[in-house]
């Protein structure tokens, strides 16, 4: 028997479902052929681990039924509300906050008086350089002669 015959039998069905004659055929060949013996051993161990894997199952908890019914009611409640309303509900907080902020800013803008920095009219100031030099009353100014006479009077007094 050729090698591929054994592996084909192994791959065609689970080892647990092979007939006794098929198993005998495999065992007989495996005694002579090392690669088929390894294949048979691997198939046998694979069957064992798969059997173990299938037996590892979970049982539903006592609360599972309640959990499903609650989820179902929640789903029904969501589905009963129109899509636009659902959208509005989810966006309501954001939209409301934005509206309140905009309104508050508008109120502040229109009701508060303008608080611009006063511009000092330097030309109007009594102490500006321009006014001191150019706009002093003519009466307060001394004439050139008066200035000279005042100086020389002082000199004469000194002598």
């Amino acid at each position: 028997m050729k090698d591929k015959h054994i592996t084909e039998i192994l791959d065609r069905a689970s080892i647990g479902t092979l007939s006794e004659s098929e198993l005998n055929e495999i065992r007989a060949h495996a005694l002579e052929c090392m690669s088929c013996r390894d294949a048979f051993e691997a198939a046998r161990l694979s069957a064992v681990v798969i059997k173990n894997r299938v037996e590892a199952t979970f049982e539903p908890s006592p609360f599972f039924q309640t959990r499903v019914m609650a989820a179902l009611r929640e789903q029904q409640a969501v589905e009963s509300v129109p899509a636009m309303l659902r959208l509005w509900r989810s966006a309501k907080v954001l939209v409301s906050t934005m509206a309140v902020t905009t309104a508050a800013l508008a109120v502040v803008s229109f009701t508060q008086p303008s608080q611009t920095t006063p511009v000092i009219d330097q030309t109007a100031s009594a102490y500006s350089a321009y006014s001191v030099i150019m706009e002093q009353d003519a009466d307060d100014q001394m004439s050139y002669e008066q200035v000279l006479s005042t100086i020389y009077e002082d000199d004469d007094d000194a002598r």
Partner: protein
Amino acid sequence: MDLDLARQAQAGDESAFAEIVRRYSPRVFSVASRFFRQRPLVEEAAQEVFLKAYTQLGSFEGRGSLEGWLTRIATNTCLNMVRGAKRRPEFTVSDLTDDEQSWLEHQSAGDGGEPASVENTVVATDLADRLLSVLSPEDQQALLMIDGEQASIKEVAEATGWSESKVKVRAFRARRKVREAMEKLLSYKRAGSER
């Protein structure tokens, strides 16, 4: 009986649907357990199955059993859930834990006849998951149902919606891949112990 229950549930009778959940949740859990190893994932999948079943109750015509109909929904729902998950790369003997190596040695030495302890079952189940990771989720299901649960080709075809020839091809391919992966493990193990 099943059809009456389905019709009552479809008409809005909550107690009828609760009865469906109570009656068939063990079956749905059993299907989901083939796909997932953690209880929260199994429960999540099972809940998804029943919610989906509720919305599709109108399509249940009573030709087959309600259990079979739910099994199909469960299989497809779980397949969809695991399809997105990345497959792990093929593992080698160096990835095996000490427990797994010793389990393999005991089994190879013919000690498999001893009563299965909880620890041994966990080790074997972990090893199964590692071997099954080389397969697609669909091939895994075919192999687990046929070789693990002794389901017939026809039963698998009904549960999955695949043709019988597709089921046969999947099971054949899966069996060969798992056997080859196990062979590789055993040869590495032998090479390791000879060193």
